[in-house]
């Protein structure tokens, strides 16, 4: 791992319409880190990912990716170097699962045989047998299967940075837990750098190397797991209180004796 960050965010501000959605965002992401962006609904998590991906122009500040300001990047190239798992999957309805997953390699003009091999590998990795799921269309998938396809698609061209927007939301707890474990295993094998958005504190604690807590468009705190568990900020306390509540309920409902 080299010392220089793969992604640097400096004094970022972002405006949508009249409203200032994000302000004063400063963050360095180093290779191999999984940074979890945690925050309540509407705090600006998706907006931050879109800024990084160049989908929304900045109102102030700077984002540097691989040492170069995004203002200098060709946006097409930039986006193909970031695998983006879009909230609610965002699959192309008129393409098969295989075509969806193979999109970026295809745009990058890989050999067809290599694309097919890659697509099969990725579908197996996210737990979808390629023979069965490759030829299907997105509307023939369940919500959870769509999200898996979204993850496979983001990984397709082996991008140095992954942007994951609530990739495991809207899943039943068992499937979610399975995918979370798969994500951790995947991270061991491919050592990806990731910006991972969630509003689920338990998920944050499970996958994060560092947690960035967002509150109303600003960074409330940046903490490792242990630091977060001991954090004093009101927002962190609010998230942790939810967690304790959950644990207490589980204890009560657990069978005794």
């Amino acid at each position, binding site marked *: 791992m080299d010392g220089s960050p793969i992604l640097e965010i400096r004094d970022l501000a972002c405006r949508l319409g009249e409203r200032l959605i994000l302000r004063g965002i400063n963050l360095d992401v180093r290779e191999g880190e999984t940074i979890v962006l945690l925050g309540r609904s509407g705090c600006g998590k998706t907006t931050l990912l*879109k800024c990084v*991906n160049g*989908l929304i122009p900045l109102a102030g500040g700077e984002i540097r990716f691989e040492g170069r300001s995004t203002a200098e990047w060709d*946006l*097409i*190239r*930039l*986006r*193909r170097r970031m695998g*983006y798992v*879009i909230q*609610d999957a*965002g*699959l*192309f*309805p*008129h393409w098969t699962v295989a075509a969806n997953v193979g*999109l*970026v390699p295809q*745009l990058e003009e890989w050999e067809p045989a290599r694309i097919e091999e890659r697509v099969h590998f990725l579908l197996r990795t996210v737990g979808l047998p390629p023979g069965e799921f490759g030829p299907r269309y997105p509307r023939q998938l369940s919500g959870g299967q769509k999200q898996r396809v979204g993850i496979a*698609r983001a990984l397709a061209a082996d991008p140095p940075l992954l942007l994951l927007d609530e990739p495991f939301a809207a899943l039943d707890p068992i499937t979610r837990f399975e995918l979370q474990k798969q994500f951790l295993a995947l991270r061991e094998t491919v050592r990806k750098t990731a910006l991972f958005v969630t509003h689920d504190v338990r998920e944050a604690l499970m996958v994060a190397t560092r947690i960035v807590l967002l509150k109303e468009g600003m960074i409330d705190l940046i903490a490792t797991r242990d630091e977060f568990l001991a954090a004093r900020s009101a927002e962190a306390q609010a998230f942790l209180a939810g967690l304790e509540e959950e644990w207490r309920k589980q204890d009560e409902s657990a069978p005794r004796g």
Partner: protein
Amino acid sequence: MSRRLAAEIATLTLEHLWLVLIAIGVAALIAVPGAIALTRRPAWRRWVLGLANILQTIPSLALFGFLLPLPVIGGIGRHTAIVALCVYALLPILRNTLLGILGVDAGVLESAVAMGMTRNQILWRVELPLAVPAILAGLRIATVATIGTATIAAAIGAGGLGVFIFRGIATVDTSVVLAGAVPAALMALLADEGLEWIEKRLSRA
């Protein structure tokens, strides 16, 4: 029905079909790229659609009348009829293509941008394929209408099934009118059903 009448029905039906096919083909070649251009230029939309709308409201006989004295596109014969039929076919194709492209889900478009597709790739691989059902619906509406309007083309010597209708009116002979009207109606029905079938097939894929 005499052999000669049957043969004439066949000839005029073919003529009619050609008029319609050429007119729709040319109209589509203008309207589809036009609609694509309009998706990129919102400011022009109102004007272009307004113009197409006004053209649509000109009664067909009057339009043939306007075209007759014009050089190149006017005069007696087939090409004048084709120009007029084209004008009528423009609006439905233009409007449907435009609505089809603009109707593509915003999330899907954003996802295409986020994946690093270029503007042209988005047009050819996402917007147009997803607009195909709407474009086909426009073609269907235009075709059915054109089959009807084309009967009037006989008035300026363009041939087609209108020949029977005008002859029947002149000789006050209903059976001759029917010899033109029935095949035209059947053609319209077949076109409607056929194109609808294709539309359904494609949107199921």
